[in-house]
């Protein structure tokens, strides 16, 4: 069946013929009287594909993934936490590793992670796609800085932040987690949006990830619930 025949029949079958009397122009009146097989200006003859004759519009600009954020708070509430992670390279006398890609993610005050969608439809104007997930590239000092909130906790795990370090080409160098000082977490979880969820049910020593020792995973956290917190931590990779 010819494509146009199919279309005509298909549309008629959908009841489309019923509106034809409303339209003043028929097929004949639309067709130019002196139709030839040549195309002009990107229009179509037969079943060829129409080609846009204009440019692509504004030249595309190199743009980062939507994870690349300094402030990963999104719509979550909690005590402000600045996360400063320094990446060092064991293979280079523990010198700062510049240009490394650092992904972090953690749960919100209620212990929930942002969902990862599957194959569903997305919208161009939807901005809060993910919360408390972000990526930064280390500077010359090996440092990345994120603005976030103090993580909450969920049953069976001590409070933590996930960290994934890649080299500049995207090759995975290390997956690790950062543990929190328990006394600080206890102060945070006793107030504000954390209070209703209560105190964490798992200590670092009992955590299945940190129980082998948190010497290299325990962050330094300063600040107070009345102001804000700052986390500093060094992650050593072999790059």
């Amino acid at each position, binding site marked *: 069946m010819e494509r*146009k025949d199919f279309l005509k029949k298909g549309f008629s079958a959908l009841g489309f013929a019923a509106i034809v009397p409303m339209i003043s122009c028929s097929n004949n009146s639309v067709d130019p009287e002196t139709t030839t097989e040549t195309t002009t200006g990107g229009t179509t003859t037969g079943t060829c594909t129409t080609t846009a004759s204009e440019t692509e519009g504004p030249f595309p600009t190199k743009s980062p993934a939507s994870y690349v954020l300094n402030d990963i708070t999104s719509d979550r509430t909690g005590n402000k936490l600045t996360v400063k992670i320094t990446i060092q390279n064991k293979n280079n006398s523990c010198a700062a590793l510049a240009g490394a890609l650092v992904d972090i993610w953690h749960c919100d005050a209620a212990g929930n992670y942002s969902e990862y*969608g599957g194959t569903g439809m997305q919208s161009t104007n939807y901005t809060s796609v993910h919360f408390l997930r972000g990526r930064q590239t280390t500077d010359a000092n090996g440092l990345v800085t994120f603005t976030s909130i103090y993580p909450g906790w969920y049953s069976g795990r001590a409070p933590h932040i996930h960290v994934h370090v890649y080299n500049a080409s995207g090759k995975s160098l290390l997956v690790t987690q950062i543990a929190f000082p328990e006394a600080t977490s206890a102060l945070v979880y006793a107030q504000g949006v954390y209070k209703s969820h209560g105190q964490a049910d798992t200590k670092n020593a009992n955590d299945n990830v940190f129980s082998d020792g948190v010497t290299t995973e325990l962050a330094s956290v300063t600040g107070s619930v009345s102001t804000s917190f700052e986390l500093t931590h060094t992650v050593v990779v072999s790059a």
Partner: protein
Amino acid sequence: MKLFRLCYRKIIDIQSRKAWDKMVFDDTHLEFYMQAQRMDPDGKYSTFQELSDNVPGADQLHYLASTAAVAYIRQLKDVVPDIANAYGKLCLPFKNFRFEIVESHITDKMKHKIAIWFYSDPLTWIDTVNNQLLVAYGDQREAFRNGKEVETDMISLSPFLSISHITSIAVPNFQSVC
């Protein structure tokens, strides 16, 4: 008269030549590579198909890789690429899209192939002229009913462009014959 949406499934692979396509190709491959390593830390699987077959939750990779394309999709200013009207101008407004990894390989970028499904905003379907749809943008059914002049456009159906949604006028209720 019907409201409908067109959907254009744009394929991007190693053959793609436009600057926009190549940026989306490069960045979504990097994101796929990075995220695949997180899902498969031991590096047992190389292809998207192998990951899908063996790693629970691998279908998240569609969404995860899409995060590298979102900024480029926004650069389109809500106009579907490639699809032109009878004047040869890009014409289809959209706000919704779906991102699909068709196939990929963590290190062999030549095998990376993705598709972006662009769903147009609603159009009013007026007529079909040869292989072209005569349409008006938005819901113009009321304007037609009121006899108003409505600006129209003509769009050819072409490969990878299809009608994805239709809204018809409500069917009148049938009277009971008891």
